[in-house]
């Protein structure tokens, strides 16, 4: 019985540690994915000028799961008439991330190409600082949380045994 309890403690703590690291990784992935999306949107404005939904769908198909999910949500928002603000509400994002992402996606399509281009460039610059912070946190704390989770799990497991 004690062996089973020890294994469960070790597994749960390891899982929590890894889950925390994954959240940080998702945040970084999403922010960097949106940054690439914004750069592609600027180039779309300059030449092809694909309609927003078509462009978003194309981008969603060639992206990581976390970015794909955001872009799919945005497509749903467009389908519903794009009234009101687009809300980004993922647990792994900081509230300031949610705010700037929401603002960026809400303004997409609602202006001429010059205005859209300028705002997208400004957004990209702002997003870069968020991405840098997220990357730094992932590098410093991500592996630490995973290792800490595993270590605490092992210690608890040994104590129970």
């Amino acid at each position, binding site marked *: 019985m004690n062996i089973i309890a020890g294994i469960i403690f070790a597994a749960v703590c390891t899982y929590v540690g890894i889950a925390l690291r994954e959240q940080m990784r998702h945040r970084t992935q999403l922010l960097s994915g949106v940054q690439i999306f914004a750069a592609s949107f600027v180039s779309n*404005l300059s030449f092809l*000028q694909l309609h927003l*939904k078509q462009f978003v769908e194309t981008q969603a198909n060639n992206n990581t799961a976390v970015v794909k999910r955001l872009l799919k949500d945005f497509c749903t928002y*467009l389908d519903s*008439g794009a009234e009101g603000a687009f809300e980004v509400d993922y647990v792994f994002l900081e509230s300031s991330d949610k705010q700037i992402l929401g603002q960026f996606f809400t303004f997409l*399509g609602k202006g001429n190409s010059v205005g859209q281009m300028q705002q997208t460039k400004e957004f990209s610059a702002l997003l870069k600082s968020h991405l840098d912070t997220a990357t730094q946190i992932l590098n410093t704390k991500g592996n630490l949380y995973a290792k800490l989770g595993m270590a605490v799990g092992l210690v608890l497991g040994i104590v129970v045994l």
Partner: protein
Amino acid sequence: MNIYNCLPASLKTLVSNLQGINELRLRAGQPIVAIVKGEAGFLTDKGFLQYNSQNILQSNSTPDRNNNKLIRQEVITISQQALDNILFCACEQSIYAYEEQISNGYIALENGVRLGLCGETTFFDGEIRGYKKITSLNVRFANHIDCCSKKVMPFVVKPLRNTLVISPPFCGKTTLLRDMTLQIAGSGINILIADERAEITMGGNFYILGCDVMLNCGKNAAILQGIRSLSPQLIVTDEVFASDVESISLATQSGVCFFASLHAENLQQAKGRLGEKLFCLFERFIVLSNRNGVGTIEGVFDEKGNILFEAKE
């Protein structure tokens, strides 16, 4: 984008049930006006209510407005928010992709539907750049009538003649041009349709055999590009202006024939609007009216103004 998908749900049902709708006039806070089979009227909960002396709405400021209380309650009005939503939807949520068309005051939609814009503009360098607020939308539906050009075709082909279709708005110029093109298409002649407002080809959906179509492109650019790269023998374009003289002259000098249309009531007015230089390039003039319904052919004239075909009373 299909206009029906952009209308509010209640309006969509009403409009899609109207057979032969030509226009829908949407003005913020005002009753919706429809033109059905050439007759104007209001849209009410029960459908289309044609104008007559009893139901003409009085403005709010007129003292006897209560006389029309009943009618006022029945007519459907449209809000500013609904107009904004229609426009945004018509642009497929991508204003940037339509800015050129918006600055020209219209959006070309599916099936040749044209959405005319009106409101408070942003003006820069003598040109409309966009709109701060849209207060009116005019939805114009395109209709195709098979063989409506049958009577005029003998006067414009064999040999192919530079032809100008003249009429006031809403008399079937574009429909006639489309059918004239259709009659000639497939005979081995290279035809270029410079379809600036996507009305001739009904949004690019109207398939005409053997035609190259430049869609949503300014006439001058389309004509010049066409001459350079497509070697057309006939160019078909809608609503020419005096400012198009250079490109049309160049095309006719290169041996290209033209079918075009112009907003005017008669030859004199057309000459005044186009200027001598451009007017003289045309050899046949087809004058339309809506005297006996939309598309009534008043006459076909040659370059000297002699009548070749006259409508019978």
